[in-house]
């Protein structure tokens, strides 16, 4: 027998054969190699789903690392976070990345969602992908809300008290919901226990299931093509192979994002401007609340809109109507693929686009007003 040199390529191939013999992955690889990504003016929007996924992976990794030292509880939550950022080497970095990545994940998810909305990629046959995506965003927001309390500092304590208090304003179920969320009448150590469980067990579980479906749908159906192509208006259709071209481009973007994340985390470990999470003082339930209690930026529009509601509208509490209208809006938003079916048959789905723009303008103006008005 001739001595075979141990080349990386040969080793790789050997390994592949070994696995293929057992799991028959050749068909899967074959399938993947035919996957293509449409190439057109709006191709850039395809990257934002991947970006969201990337930030989610960063969240999982840094979250697990934080779990090594974090200890939930009213008399240990704050102390352990302080320990992480002051004594554990690179602890400050892990926490900063976790916080930055959380915000960027929500941002990327919003961009991803609106790009899908305005390119109408949710249309038949991708209704389920859209619905699962909207649900994933909802879970992402819940991740943010539950994670915010865990350091048990002044900022998080009062924001959580206000946030859960709003849920308490709901009719019939409000009191129940609030008590269940808080684990009692007020935000206490019991609340941390619940939020911690939600943040590291329940939400990740649900998220993983939904995300698997979301990704499975995409793999099964391929990337959505522009609406114009379907109408036959455009010229020749071009595609990238998914592997390796699109994947390499995606890798490139992920690398750049990771670098941005690192720069943000090192230069602004406590965040900056309205995305700000200094540890500050430990939560003191008896201390007067800080003069300005603000929710995180992605809740700002809802918070501000509720503040604008009059005290009473036709003898119903204004806040209640606000919550009702926004819940209805959210539901409509999720059901857009089913409602827009008719509208999609015309040349341009004007009605749906108008709805989208109203939502975007509403969110942007309310957010800006929320930060300008004290």
């Amino acid at each position, binding site marked *: 027998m001739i001595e075979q040199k141990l080349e990386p390529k040969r080793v790789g191939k050997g390994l592949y054969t070994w696995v293929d013999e057992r799991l028959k992955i050749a068909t899967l690889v074959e399938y993947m190699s035919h996957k293509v990504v449409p190439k057109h003016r709006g191709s850039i929007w395809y990257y934002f789903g991947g970006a969201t996924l990337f930030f989610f992976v960063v969240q999982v990794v840094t979250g697990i690392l934080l779990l090594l030292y974090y200890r939930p509880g009213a008399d240990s939550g704050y102390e*352990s976070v302080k320990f992480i950022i002051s004594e554990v*080497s690179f602890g400050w970095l892990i926490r900063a990345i976790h916080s930055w990545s959380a915000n960027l994940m929500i941002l990327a998810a919003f961009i991803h969602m609106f790009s899908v909305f305005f390119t109408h990629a949710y249309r038949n046959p991708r209704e389920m992908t859209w619905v699962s995506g909207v649900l994933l965003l909802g879970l992402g927001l819940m991740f943010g809300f539950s994670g915010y309390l865990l350091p048990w500092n002044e900022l998080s304590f009062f924001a959580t008290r206000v946030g859960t208090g709003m849920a308490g304003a709901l009719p019939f179920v409000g009191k129940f919901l609030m008590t269940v969320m808080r684990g009692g009448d007020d935000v206490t150590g019991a609340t941390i226990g619940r939020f911690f469980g939600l943040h590291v067990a329940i939400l990740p579980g649900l998220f993983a299931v939904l995300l698997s479906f979301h990704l499975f749908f995409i793999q099964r159906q391929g990337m959505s093509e522009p609406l114009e192509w379907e109408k036959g208006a455009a010229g020749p259709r071009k595609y990238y192979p998914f592997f390796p071209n699109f994947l390499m481009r995606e890798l490139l973007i992920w690398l750049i994002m990771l670098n941005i994340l690192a720069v943000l985390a090192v230069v602004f470990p406590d965040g900056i401007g309205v995305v700000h999470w200094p540890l500050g003082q430990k939560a003191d339930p008896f201390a007067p609340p800080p003069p300005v209690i603000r929710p995180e930026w992605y809740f700002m529009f809802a918070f501000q809109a509720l503040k604008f509601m009059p005290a009473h509208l036709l003898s119903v509490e204004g806040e209640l109507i606000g919550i009702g209208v926004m819940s209805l809006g959210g539901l409509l938003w999720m059901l857009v693929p089913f409602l827009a079916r008719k509208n999609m048959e015309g040349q341009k789905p004007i009605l749906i686009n108008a709805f989208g723009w109203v939502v975007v303008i509403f969110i942007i103006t309310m957010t800006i007003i929320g930060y300008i008005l004290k």
Partner: protein
Amino acid sequence: MDNANQDRRGFLNWLIGGGVIAFLGSVLYPVVKYMVPPASGEANVSQVKLPFKLKDLQEDEKHFRIFKFGRTLGIVILTPDNQIRALSAVCTHLDCTVQYRKDLGLIWCACHNGKYDLEGRNISGPPPRPLKQYAVHINKTTGEIIVAEGQG
């Protein structure tokens, strides 16, 4: 021409391979460093193991020692009836560190002659409030003293 292209591709592949390895290194370095627990062990929560043993306190001429308790100071005292008691060591008047006066049987603040009894009650001088008492647990076999938040 073909050869040059081949060379360039080889170099590019080498660069990417090396880059990936270096990149992984720069990511893994902080992660591995992070996973190694710091010397101080764990976050001080609401209890602390004193850096000296029961015997040290008993042999200490002054019958008391000051210790660090989170972000504040505590005082542990061997009382005349041979009990171990732990209290906050921060005088409630102007935050000086108090001491135990064996001769007076009192906790005493040198700054303005504030006096507390061994329960921490302010009994004389300017202190406006009592000292906070902590719970003391003693491991009989090892002689370790553990001080915890909460009434003694």
